[in-house]
């Protein structure tokens, strides 16, 4: 399965298993979503379980809060993560706080799915990476898969979770892993181990990182598309790096990070999102607090730039192989 099929399969299974699961969003019903993530679900599960919504993100998330409070398990789709902002108040002030403010009177078990990230020539409004904004909200979990197998298991766990989850789907790798070289042919997921996705139900616990590659020389913290870019660069450079795919940013697998950095003594953090106040800043601070006396070089960040996402200069913006290699060379120097 590719990542879209895996995500589709997760929703299909949850619609089947739990009559309270509903899937909703712009174009998700009859058409099956602009990325086809919900293809066939309405036909199979019916129009009241899988349906189109008005183009109104505040309404989509706000209505999902009410559905969750009723006892449903809504899985709203925001067509692009860039459009989560019109619905952000319902997420921040309502969904995220409902359990707390009502002392468990009401809960909001929703999973907001949304494609995010760049590398598809989407311009300023189809490329953003808002994960650090999500992790800054108290009461929301943030999940980012990097391959089909994880996407399915994590999405099932997210839908079953009784708290609101923002499930960010790196759209650049929907159809195949991305090396970071935009001028090379893209390999399909079918050539990758993670494409072996079981048809049946399985879940991957939220809050657990995965070791993509074991190594001794440096720890690379990445998630989503950047896991694959990092892997390509590291293999090409022949660095003995350990790559952790964080998978869930909140709750974060701090133990995995701490163990790895203490072992390697060096840490490189990679994300696509803009640099200032990005999630990398949080990771760097945590590593510094917990592993300072084990560090042999300053923690480095490789990120997007603090500009709106450019269209034609997309590949100059993208934290690609050159930027990663330069940072790795620096960190490995002494």
């Amino acid at each position, binding site marked *: 399965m590719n990542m879209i099929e895996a995500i589709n399969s997760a929703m299909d299974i949850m619609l089947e298993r739990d009559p309270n699961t509903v899937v909703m969003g712009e174009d998700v019903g009859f058409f099956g979503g602009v990325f086809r993530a919900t293809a066939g679900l309405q036909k199979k599960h019916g129009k009241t379980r899988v349906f189109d919504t008005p183009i109104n993100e505040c309404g989509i998330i706000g209505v999902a809060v009410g559905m969750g409070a009723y006892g449903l398990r809504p899985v709203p789709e925001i067509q692009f993560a860039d459009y989560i902002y*019109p619905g952000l108040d319902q997420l921040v002030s309502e969904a995220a706080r409902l359990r707390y403010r009502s002392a468990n009177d009401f809960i909001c078990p929703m999973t907001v799915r949304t494609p995010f990230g760049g590398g598809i020539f989407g311009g300023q409004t189809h490329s953003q990476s808002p994960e650090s904004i999500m992790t800054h909200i108290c009461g929301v979990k943030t999940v980012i898969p990097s391959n089909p197998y994880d996407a399915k298991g994590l999405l099932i766990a997210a839908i079953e979770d009784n708290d609101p989850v923002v499930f960010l789907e790196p759209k650049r790798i929907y159809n195949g892993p991305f090396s970071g070289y935009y001028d090379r042919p893209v390999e399909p997921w079918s050539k990758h181990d993670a494409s072996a996705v079981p048809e049946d139900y399985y879940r991957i616990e939220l809050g657990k990182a995965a070791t993509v590659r074991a190594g001794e020389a440096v720890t690379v913290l990445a998630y989503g598309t950047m896991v694959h870019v990092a892997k390509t660069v590291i293999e090409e450079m022949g660095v003995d790096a350990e790559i952790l795919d964080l998978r869930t940013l909140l709750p974060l697998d701090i133990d995995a990070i701490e163990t790895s950095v203490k072992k390697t003594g060096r840490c490189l953090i990679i994300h696509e999102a803009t640099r200032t106040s990005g999630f990398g800043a949080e990771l760097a601070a945590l590593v510094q607090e917990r592993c300072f006396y084990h560090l042999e070089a300053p923690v480095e960040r490789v990120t997007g730039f603090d500009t709106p996402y450019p269209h034609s200069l997309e590949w100059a913006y993208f934290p690609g192989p050159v930027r990663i290699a330069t940072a790795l060379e620096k960190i490995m120097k002494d």
Partner: protein
Amino acid sequence: MPETHRRPASNLPPLSLHIPEPRYRPGDTPDFGDIDVPAVEATPRPGEATKPDAMRDMCYGLVRVLDFDGQAKGAWDPKLSAERLRAMLRYMMLVRAFDDRMFRAQRQGKTSFYMKCTGEEATSVASTMAIDRADMCFPSYRQQGILIARDYPLIQMMNQIYSNRGDHLLGRQLPIMYSAPEHGFFSVSGNLATQYPQAVGWAMASASKGDSRIATVWCGEGSSAEGDFHSALTFATVYNAPVIFNVVNNQWAISSFSGFAGGERTTFAARAVGYGIAGLRVDGNDPLAVYAATQWAADRARTNNGPTLIEHFTYRAEGHSTSDDPSAYRAAQEASAWPFGDPIARMKQHLIALGEWDDAQHDALRAELDDLVKTTQKQSEKLGILGHGMHQPFETMFEDVFEQMPWHLKEQCDQMLAEQEKKFGPNWKPE
């Protein structure tokens, strides 16, 4: 002048920007003589299944039942029993007694904040009495009448207001932001109008499950300018959601009059027209009209005829909250000049006209309710008041952010507990 601000050459007079101004300011003598008060019999009652476009006039008229002599008349008379009328009166009076007492408690420094609904009691009490006990209410912050009309224990309201150890919300919420699922009362948010789409979602969920319960939701006319309001109406019409939208038009949103929400150009009920939703404009100071309109809308929703928007035309007779001083922005006599009177006085007059009530009974009831509120207040204050010590175990601050506490919150909780132990010693217990 910068180039971009230059007027284009033409013979037209310059454009001018309109900034709404209320009709009266402090020092003015208000005169509401020009407000159209249609005769009680003038407003027809369409069938509950009437298509919205066949009842547009209802968005511009006024549903009324009680005339100013206390007689119930016209097509909208819900013909309630004397017993039910007295119950309605009692609930409204209890709301007022409660408000007065809690307002005073705030002034005495026993809590941080309070909001009265004086003059608007009918818009929550009569409205709640007209729906089923199992229907879910999504209140804004001025609908204490819902809880009272559903016999929610007064002491629990007070415990919440005092954030004391009886507060089941553990002191997390601003006073008056209650939550009572078992009374069909959704948790109150401080963000205006957010509950509008949530009510629609709840109603959609109910419909999709083949349930028979409906949702009702309240906001002020000021808040109807929020995007959430329009999101909610869009979703409600698209999915024909079984929901009742209440807009309590009390003329003022803190110091901004209704003109700043668009009220100069049209009615708030007329917002329904653009969405193809049924709209009713109601005399919000007439408890029977509020009851009748809500009952109509509830029947409509329950028979799959869709949502209704009800504008309750009323007046905020007191300050916005304990933090507000209305004499700074509005004419002093506005409340008394308001042509629709006071809902409690009108209900009393009606019952007296029916021969079902008298002044002595009224005074006795008021005394009884004041007493009830006072006694309850004493009990609640035994559980603590805001600012007098801490009433909740410290660690509750970190609970319920998530179903299970993640490591970073556990760490922060431990840090806070260590700080508190330094301050208060290891044996500290909540008061």
